[in-house]
């Protein structure tokens, strides 16, 4: 807006300056022409009077001069005319006539250069602009000079002095009018610019605010649609966009909710038949002595697969609970060392079966922190059993660490390890590193996904680093106090780091 006003002002000054210059020149020229015309007439008449007189008598001539010259004086509304008749210097004749001169004019007012010029020219008007002082004001005047030949007395110079300050006054008046007009114009321009900008910019600002609110999730925000102009068109298009966004996001979230519900419903629906199958299997198990070896093997398969089915269902339900945002952690002060020890001792039998040694390194001080012990033990059991399974029978090291702000556990195996691309997918649902590998624990493929959700519920980090044939290390880091901020884990992870964390 300021720019608009500044540019308009510059344009106005330029146009005004040009106008006043042109008009000023025009005014002056007109006046000069008028003055020259008058002077020409006057000097011709004077010359004619002197040429026509037959008098050679100096006294008579003087009388004539005294009659004619003062008559040339004028004092009209259009400006005054003063007159002077001066004897040209350096003449042969010694007849002198008294030189009449208007009262408020002195010989020195007539520039010497002009006098020289007049002396040299014949039958021609010569003029010059001079400034005469009157009442302390310098008035612009034009002096027009011409030669008058007087019988006997010789060459005289007739000077007519015109006051043209009236032209200057006109010009001044015009200029000041222009200036005031210009100022008013700029002021008006400023006001107009202000209102126009407000009209255009305010809706744009409003649109920006609403767009921001939309971006922040208030999908029902709209712009007011008033009138038929561009602004209203913008508002209408904007609202159409917002409407379409809201509809699509609404549809997506509805779909997503339906899907979550579906998973949850399916899981629940499966529980009743699963219960029946389980109970039937138990009935059979109670009579296992009555079965032949093949039927017994079939029963064993049934029992183990039902168990697997059940844990899969439980994991699916747990994930669907996370997806629905229905999980609440029961956070209480705990000793992480105790929970780790519990998880380790629970997995000793599995480790023994696979000939794997579990090495537990605990700090001497208790590792107290706030967390949900049931969930964290589940995470640890999952990570440790994974390490045992993929550890190729080599020792698995479990280390617990603490700092002022955080507590951590690392679970390190020296087994098959993973490639970079495998590592990137390790937390994905139903992803399996090696589908052909026989799974001893019958994992569901959801274990790490749930572990990650459990970790995020505590605002912690779950990270992994791995190298093929060298082993894998998982690191769980939790804040000491829930909501506490930590920037570094108390335990190192290793050089390659696949960060799956949320702070």
């Amino acid at each position, binding site marked *: 807006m300021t720019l608009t006003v500044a540019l308009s002002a510059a344009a106005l000054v330029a146009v005004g300056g040009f106008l006043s210059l042109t008009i000023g020149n025009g005014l002056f020229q007109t006046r000069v022409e008028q003055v020259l015309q008058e002077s020409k007439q006057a000097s011709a008449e004077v010359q004619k009077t002197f040429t026509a007189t037959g008098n050679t008598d100096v006294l008579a001539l003087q009388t004539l001069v005294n009659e004619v010259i003062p008559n040339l004086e004028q004092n009209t509304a259009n400006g005054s005319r003063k007159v002077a008749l001066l004897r040209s210097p350096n003449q042969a004749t010694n007849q002198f006539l008294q030189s009449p001169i208007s009262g408020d004019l002195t010989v020195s007012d007539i520039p010497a250069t002009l006098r020289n010029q007049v002396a040299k020219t014949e039958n021609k008007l010569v003029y010059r602009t001079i400034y005469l002082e009157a009442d302390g004001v310098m008035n612009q005047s034009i002096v027009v000079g011409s030669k008058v030949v007087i019988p006997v007395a010789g060459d005289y110079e007739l000077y007519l002095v015109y006051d043209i300050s009236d032209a200057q006054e006109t010009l001044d008046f015009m200029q000041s009018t222009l200036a005031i007009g210009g100022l008013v114009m700029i002021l008006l321009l400023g006001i107009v610019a202000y209102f126009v900008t407000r009209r255009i910019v305010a809706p744009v600002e409003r649109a920006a605010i609403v767009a921001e609110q939309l971006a922040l999730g208030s999908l029902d925000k709209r712009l007011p649609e008033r009138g038929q102009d561009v602004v209203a068109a913008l508002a209408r298009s904007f609202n159409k966009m917002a409407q379409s966004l809201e509809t699509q996001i609404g549809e997506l979230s509805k779909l997503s909710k339906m899907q979550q519900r579906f998973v949850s419903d399916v899981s629940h629906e499966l529980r009743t038949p699963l*219960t029946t199958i*389980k109970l039937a299997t138990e009935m059979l198990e*109670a009579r296992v002595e009555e079965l032949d070896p093949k039927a017994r093997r079939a029963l064993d398969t049934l029992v183990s697969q039902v168990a697997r089915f059940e844990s899969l269902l439980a994991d699916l339900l747990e994930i669907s609970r996370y997806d629905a945002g229905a999980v609440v952690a029961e956070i209480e002060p705990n000793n992480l060392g105790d929970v780790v020890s519990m998880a380790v001792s629970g997995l000793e039998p599995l480790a023994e079966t696979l000939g794997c040694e579990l090495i537990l390194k605990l700090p001497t001080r208790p590792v107290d922190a706030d967390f949900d012990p049931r969930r964290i033990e589940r995470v640890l059991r999952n990570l440790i059993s994974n390490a045992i399974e993929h550890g190729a029978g080599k020792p698995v090291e479990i280390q617990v660490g603490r700092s002022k702000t955080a507590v951590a556990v690392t679970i390190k195996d020296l087994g098959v390890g993973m490639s970079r691309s495998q590592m990137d997918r390790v937390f994905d649902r139903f992803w399996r590193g090696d589908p052909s590998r026989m799974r001893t624990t019958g994992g569901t493929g959801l274990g790490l996904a749930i572990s990650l959700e459990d970790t995020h519920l505590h605002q912690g980090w779950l990270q992994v680093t791995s190298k093929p044939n060298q082993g894998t290390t998982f690191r769980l880091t939790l804040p000491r106090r829930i909501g506490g901020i930590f920037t570094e884990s108390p335990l190192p992870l290793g050089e390659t780091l696949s960060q799956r964390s949320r702070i």
Partner: protein
Amino acid sequence: MQKVLVVEDELPLNQQLTDLLENAGYQAMGVTDGGTAFLAFQDFEPDLVLLDVMLPNKTGIEVCREIRAVSGVPIIMLTAKAEDEDVVDGLEAGADDYILKPMPSFKVLQARIEARLRPLRQPEFTEIILGPLVIDVLGHEVRRDGVRVALTPLEFNLLQTLAEAPKQVFKREDLLKKVWGYHYDADTRLVNVHVQRLRSKIEDDPDNPKIVVTERGVGYKAGQF
């Protein structure tokens, strides 16, 4: 022989449950419809009811209320949804305990049933006076200002446990162990809901209890009089 009524609309599961219960030495009867469950209860006069929540014609919650209106018989709810209101609704309707489908094994269910049917432990006192209440331990009766208050066996057990050690604060886990017979982590909502139910029967103002007092952050204890 103790009698168990199985109210479960899934016929295969119902049959499987009754079979297993009979194998375990109970007399079991199966009902698949919520609408006829109460009639079956009145006919069969069971010692315990296994009650599914989702039933045709009448929900398990409604059946539970019907039975509670006339009897303090132990009721164990069967539910597939632990996180839902179902559990709390069922407990508030008067169920003593609940078990999630699929249960870890029939033995677990059997243990829960036995815990509910187990005769109450040998009382330490024959009569306890707790404020306005007279607890007749041998007669399994509670009188308030001479008027009999109808408590379920579980509620009676809960009140008796608190009253026998009037200065002791019981953690919810302790109560789950002593009253419900749980020996591992169980749902503490069981305790909360039953304490509420008990208070509504014995307190002057259940919102401002004097007999069963909450010890914030710990658990419950009997009030001091």
